[in-house]
């Protein structure tokens, strides 16, 4: 079958009973336990939160065109960057791929009918919504100005904003992650179809598994951190107040113990997506399957050992610094291995350039750069100069946006036909990918330079010599914003007007592609029996239409 995306299937859209049309009405959605519908509930919610966080970013970048600030008062700017960080980290990036693509695909990829605990899955979405409501309430009623990091004693004793409501929102939403992670781990362990051994699993599943390990082990600790801050604010007790024997750095340890692994929660799923995209669009088996699988697990484990690199300039002992530094260098190695393996997968492949592949290739390059800039920060001597500056901002945006968001967009585009039964216009999609790539680099590359020059982050006003680079960054942000709006438009358009998609428009391998698009509620009529390795692109030709 041709893999050209514009192929129109003969059978009209939705003529078979699938999970979308199996039942109608708002109650059938709000009380669903179907993992596919829950994935869509999440998709809508996190997209909404993404545009809230994105709006904050746009306002920030407009403001920073002028050294004295072009738009808002410093107090408001401080709230903007706090809201941007909190919403983007906790309400977009952490759930993004796991709660949408993960929820949709994990059962399908392993040949199961649903996750192990479908009702827990629905509960996790409601928990997310409750957490989001608390945070949105905090934003609407005046905002929060602690930064997404909530450092004490500023957050516990000095801030005059809605810290408790926000901390509560973050605390509650953490349980959503925990439930999702728990569900994934049990599902992957216990519900694989016959013949689906661990080493035949798609690497996306390995990525989900590794991510889930971090979900369940890390999230409870940040819950405690948030709880203690709320407790201190509420009862005026001195848990983090040095005047009564408290230690403000204890908060930082508790916070970063989760928040460093959290960044791997954000990137591992994207890496899993990339493995799927690169293999499909190069029509090749992944190069070094087991190495990539083990690297995912290694990243998850080592990620728990490096949190102190966020605290190199807090006055921690030189010895602690050395240990965290060497471990931080170590955690870079598995990621490097993956980059080489993905690139090698392209060798002698049969490569096509649909939008998902463009996102995947962009990811590999940008993640390489973002990851390598992490070495500047693992390195103690340079981190002293760069910590707390725009270099950090650029580093994590290269990974989070150049990496995770592009992986997310690539995955959404790749599985969109499966999820909706529709094809989107690929020309627009490729154009948008290009716009995102250009806008992204223009926004964040100047920030590396700003950081090295010494411009600190979270500055509402700045010295004049930094203006040119800031203006470049803001110009890039406007392009990036447009780049994100374009998919919103054509993807929504495609849900109604896009041509029908067959079961496998890309000619991909994987159990999810052996079902109709959209799939029926129970996924498979008969649970499949798996007899081949993952990514069997060089085996029997794909014949499904």
């Amino acid at each position, binding site marked *: 079958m041709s893999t050209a995306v514009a192929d129109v299937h003969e059978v009209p859209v939705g003529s078979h009973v699938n999970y979308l049309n199996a039942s109608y009405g708002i109650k059938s959605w709000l009380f669903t336990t179907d993992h596919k519908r829950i994935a869509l509930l999440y998709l809508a919610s996190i997209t909404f939160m993404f545009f809230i966080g994105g709006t904050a970013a746009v306002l920030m970048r407009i403001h920073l*065109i002028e050294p004295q600030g072009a738009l808002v008062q410093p107090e408001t700017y401080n709230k903007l960057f706090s809201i941007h960080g909190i919403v983007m980290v906790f309400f977009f990036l952490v759930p993004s791929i796991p709660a949408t693509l993960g929820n949709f695909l994990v059962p399908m990829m392993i040949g199961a009918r649903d996750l192990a605990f479908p009702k827990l899955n629905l509960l996790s979405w409601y928990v997310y919504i409750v957490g989001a409501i608390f945070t949105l309430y905090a934003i609407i009623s005046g905002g929060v100005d602690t930064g997404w990091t909530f450092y004490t004693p500023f957050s516990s004793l000095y801030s005059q904003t809605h810290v408790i409501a926000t901390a509560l929102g973050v605390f509650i939403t953490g349980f959503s992650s925990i439930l999702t992670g728990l569900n994934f781990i049990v599902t992957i362990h216990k519900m694989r179809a016959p013949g689906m051994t661990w080493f035949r699993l798609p690497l996306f599943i390995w990525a989900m598994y590794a991510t889930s390990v971090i979900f369940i082990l890390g999230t409870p600790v940040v819950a405690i951190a948030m709880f203690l801050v709320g407790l201190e604010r509420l009862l005026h007790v001195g848990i983090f107040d040095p005047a009564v024997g408290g230690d403000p750095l204890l908060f930082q340890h508790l916070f970063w113990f989760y928040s460093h692994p959290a960044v791997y929660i954000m990137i591992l799923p994207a890496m899993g997506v990339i493995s799927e995209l690169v293999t499909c669009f*190069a029509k090749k088996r992944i190069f*070094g*399957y087991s190495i990539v699988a083990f690297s995912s697990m290694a990243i998850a484990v080592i990620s728990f050992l490096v949190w102190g690199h966020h605290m190199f300039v807090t*006055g921690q002992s030189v010895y602690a610094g050395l240990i965290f530094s060497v471990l931080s260098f170590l955690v870079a190695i598995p990621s490097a291995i993956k980059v080489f393996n993905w690139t090698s997968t392209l060798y002698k492949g049969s490569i096509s350039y649909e939008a998902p592949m463009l996102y995947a290739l962009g990811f590999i390059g940008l993640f390489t750069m973002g990851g390598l800039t992490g070495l500047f920060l693992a390195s103690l001597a*340079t981190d002293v100069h760069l910590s707390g500056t725009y270099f950090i901002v650029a580093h994590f945006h290269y990974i989070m946006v150049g990496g995770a968001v592009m992986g997310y967009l690539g995955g959404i585009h790749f599985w969109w036909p499966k999820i909706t039964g529709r094809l989107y216009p690929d020309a627009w999609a490729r154009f948008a990918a290009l716009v995102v790539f250009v806008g992204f680099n223009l926004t964040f590359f100047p920030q590396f330079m700003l950081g090295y020059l010494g411009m600190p982050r979270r500055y509402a006003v700045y010295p004049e010599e930094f203006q040119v680079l800031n*203006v470049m960054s803001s110009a890039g942000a406007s392009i990036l914003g447009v780049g994100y709006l374009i998919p919103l438009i054509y993807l929504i358009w495609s849900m109604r007007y896009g041509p029908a998609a067959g079961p496998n428009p890309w000619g991909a391998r994987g159990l999810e592609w052996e079902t109709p698009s959209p799939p029926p509620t129970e996924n498979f009529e008969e649970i499949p029996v798996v007899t081949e390795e993952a990514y069997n692109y060089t085996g029997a030709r794909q014949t499904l239409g």
Partner: protein
Amino acid sequence: MISAEIARIFLDGGGRSLASALAPIPIRPPAASTIAEGVDKLHFTLTGITLFFTVIIFSTIFFFMIKYRRQSEDEVPPEIEKNVPLEILWTGIPTLICVVLFFWSASLYIQNARPPDASTEIFVVGKQWMWHLQHPEGVREINELHVPVGVPIKLTMTSEDVIHDFYVPAFRVKKDVLPGRYSSLWFQATKTGTYHIFCGQYCGAEHAQMIGWVYVMEPSDYAAWLSGGASHESMAQAGERLFTQLGCVTCHVTDNTGRGPSLVGLYGKAEKLRSGETRLVDEALIRQAIVFPNSVILPNYPPVMPTFQGQINEEQVLQLIAYVKSLGMQERTGK
């Protein structure tokens, strides 16, 4: 409207000409301390490594994208699943690079962590949203730090309220400034000039305005500046004045006949406390004694010292410490 704003800036909106708007974009901050060159060398090596690998990956991808683009729908790529020697190579080389970088960076860091013995000490108190600096000779500055060139300077710092951070990009030094404890950094300036001080840890509404300047001067100019203006009592003298005013002198009698120990010759020694642990009598301990006295009582003394928390600010604590330090130079008397 963003484009209008950008156009305005570039077309002489605020008195800036097009030429100056396109003036060379700054690449490197001034390198004005003894460690700056070393840090920059490491930084530029890391930059080179980053660019090298980014270019290699991007260009390899680009090359493969073109060379192996799909020619026909029926083509079957070869099965190439793994190559263990290659995996070892591209695990080994990055590991080696990381090991080298780690040791290089760690040794720089360790070198830069310990202030030379003969450092001149200056005291810094950060508070929302300004820097208060005190020279031992007594001169006080706000948001400004005058120092002589070529002399190692140690800053001992604390905060009155939240966590701040003292950052001088030109010197490549930065350290968090915390409430309730002392942190320190050191530098030796190599070039006269004026350099930014930034607060590097978000601290509330005016965080971005908690900035200042370091003025590095020739030693003779510095000496002149130090002694110029109104006469100042040194920090130790101010401390001695406080010592009397607050009543410390009533208990801490120098001949050890008071309710508290004499503080002569005490600074810098290791002392065993009532609780059994041995502590070095340094700035941190003296501050603790002033704020949480009953946690650092000496043996054979009753735990009756009152706390002075809330009665004096951090700058006054530093003055008292300076006084106790000056006593420490004298011979130890009594118990």
